[in-house]
């Protein structure tokens, strides 16, 4: 395996890690505020469809992006209503949202485009194009002639869509918001001990809705990336469990932004390797591709089992806040 092949796999890891990362950070905001969200998958899927549909109809990828984020935020609001206002079961609400998105996207796609539940192929102007950074080459033939540093710059760092760069910038931003701003302090507090927040004269409901909406926006970006950057259009169930992997990455990262980046890159890498090789041979043993695909999930179970140190979720997570003396 030559250096350029390794770079190509890493490059594809970054592309595949991006939707995971955005969804993972989305979940981070929600769960840090005490609202469990297993509906990341559904929100991503809804955003993927609406961004593709609107990008196709309007011809503008930005209109698509807004529509996708809008759809995701709408579902977030629904989750908020169920789990904050009506103090319902957050897990059940999340499950419902996943099915709602899985069903509605296909139903609406069929009505609008009559192509068996998919959107038409997006023309390049309705997609997020790849940005070639200054001084970078873009074709394989040219890159192959560069030195190692040049290859890293051109193949790995350059040539991604704007959403990839945004996603990576959101990591430090998330860290900064969470640990350096008043909003972040209150957000973390409301996920740990809402009673403390309440007695301090801050609205628990307000903080939690804010977190849930941010979660919706980030999931919207993740979905839009799937349909308008990674792929060229929407197909049924295209989120393909990425919402759950993001959730897994979140637990793996123990709800911390930088670790979330690492976890998502790792899971993206597994995905990239699984895509590139059917079977991996390690000495005598052949590791089947299905094992590579299942690896993220297996890792999560191991993490949850406490074998890699205990993952302690925000303490008030999953519990509706009921005011008491």
């Amino acid at each position, binding site marked *: 395996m030559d250096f350029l092949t390794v770079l190509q796999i890493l490059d594809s890891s970054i592309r595949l890690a991006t939707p995971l990362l955005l969804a993972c950070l989305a979940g981070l905001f929600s769960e840090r505020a005490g609202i469990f969200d297993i509906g990341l998958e559904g929100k991503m899927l809804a955003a993927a469809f609406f961004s593709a549909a609107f990008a196709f109809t309007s011809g503008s990828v930005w209109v698509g992006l807004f529509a996708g984020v809008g759809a995701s935020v709408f579902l977030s609001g629904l989750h908020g209503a169920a789990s904050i206002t009506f103090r319902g079961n957050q897990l059940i609400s999340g499950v419902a949202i996943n099915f709602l998105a899985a069903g509605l996207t296909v139903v609406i796609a069929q009505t609008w485009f009559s192509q068996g539940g998919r959107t038409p192929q997006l023309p390049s102007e309705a997609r997020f194009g790849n940005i070639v950074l200054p001084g970078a080459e873009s074709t394989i033939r040219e890159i192959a002639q560069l030195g190692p540093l040049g290859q890293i710059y051109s193949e790995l760092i350059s040539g991604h869509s704007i959403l990839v760069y945004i996603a990576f910038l959101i990591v430090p931003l998330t860290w900064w918001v969470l*640990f*350096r*701003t*008043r*909003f*972040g*302090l*209150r957000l*973390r*507090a409301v996920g*740990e*001990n809402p*009673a*403390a*927040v*309440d*007695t*301090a*004269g*801050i609205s628990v409901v307000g903080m939690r809705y804010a977190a849930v909406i941010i979660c919706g926006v980030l999931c919207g970006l993740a979905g839009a990336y799937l349909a308008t950057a990674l792929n060229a259009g929407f197909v049924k169930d295209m989120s393909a469990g990425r919402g759950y992997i993001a959730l897994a990455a979140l637990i793996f990262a123990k709800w911390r932004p930088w670790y979330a980046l690492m976890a998502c890159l790792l899971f993206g890498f597994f995905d990239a390797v699984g895509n590139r090789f059917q079977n991996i041979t390690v000495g005598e043993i052949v590791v089947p591709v299905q094992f590579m695909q299942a690896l993220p999930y297996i890792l999560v179970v191991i993490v949850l089992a406490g074998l890699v140190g205990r993952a302690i979720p925000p*303490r008030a997570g999953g519990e509706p806040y009921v*005011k008491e*003396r």
Partner: protein
Amino acid sequence: MTDAAAIELRGISKAFGPVQANKDISMSVKRGTIHGIVGENGAGKSTLMSILYGFYKADRGEIFINGQKTEIPDSQAAIRAGIGMVHQHFKLVENFTVVENVILGAEDGAMLNPSIAKARRTLKELSEEYGLKVDPDAIIEDLSVGHQQRVEILKQLYRHADILILDEPTGVLTPAEADQLFRILERLREEGKTIVLITHKLREIMEITDTVSVMRRGEMTNTVATASTSPAELAEMMVGRKVLLRVEKSPAKPGDVMLKVDDLRVVRDGVERLKGVSLHVRAGEILGIAGVAGNGQTELLEVLGGMIPATGGTVTVRNEQIDVSGKHSNGQTRRARGIGHVPEDRQDEGLIMPFEAWENTAFGYHKDPKYNHGMLMDNAAIKADCADKMERYDVRPPNPRLPARNFSGGNQQKIVVAREMDRAPDILLVGQPTRGVDIGAIEFIHKEILRLRDEGKAILLVSVELDEIMGLSDRIAVMFDGKIMGERLPSETNENELGLLMAGVTETRVGGAA
């Protein structure tokens, strides 16, 4: 400065459904004083303070702060009015640092760093001013309970609270920590702060307060200067002239030792809750355990009842040592040994609230052959048994099909009592048998306990109600901080002496000093 009282309440009333928690309460607290509020559990102290802190809205009445009529619809309004409250259960974010907890909700601006820098300076000043030393960067969960409480106080001072309400602040503190707290409160008073101290410990009232109000059953019965009263007088005002339930009681005829506990120890959540408890109960006698809630009585009952494991010590039942490690025993093996258990909390432990009465009749005894028919439970037999028990124990309404939550507190307790006592267990563990129970049911339950004693059963009674302990027990042991402080005979002691033992004071005999 005006002479107006720091706090003045006029005619405060508050009802929760049919329960009148506060009845027409008026109270006035002078600036720069420490004012105590005493009363039994459920007397309405906490409700009153929650109204002052904006957690509840009073049905009627007015609040004046520094002479100004003040509306307090929420906690924020209370904070604005300069009122701070240290709750019995701290409202701290456990994995935040001290300084983060202090600024939460009182930040300056959207960025944290300036707020934290300022808070660090202010905290330094405050800790020097009031002798409240705490490391601003310590994580709350690493701090002792006493230090956590300091953080709560600092939090209020940081918000410029002039009036500080402390709800049962010493309930979770060791005596040494409590003393430190009192020194801090004295400093605060010197600096002109007004403090309201809610407690049911008379020793604290006498030690630290300037004035004291007594609450009983939602009413404020008296307000006096502390210097002009005595613990005995306060106790009398707290308990009131209520009709003493005279239980007809013959002298006990103690037999063999049925239950023997030696050096029993329990560590729970890293805290030693039982620190070597030894006691014994004979057949035909009632051993009463007196004490302030949270001094290990709960753990004592739970270990004996098989709910939690002990970390040390032995328990002997009729000369036979039983397993207390929890490895080979649980609630059911205890019942099989003839140990009945009326738990302290009938709603969380003794009953499954959504279960119907008949299902609760079998709870814990559901493997009893008489309730079973081979593989299946004999529901008809359980229902018949329930109907029978309901009649004999006067449960109203006598409807086995009604869910437990639909019975009144007294009738719920009768369902538990019927279940645990009707089998005539050799040993009966009883926790808070009459908490939240109406007077008629109290009388009935007391008679049943005595009847069992007269049948030659050994009874261990835990109660925070001194009356109940005094009225029923043949011997009284007092628990404090996980230890038995001493044992007294009811005929040779009084409430004052027991009260002092409950506060951990052993050396003085109050009878002689007063």
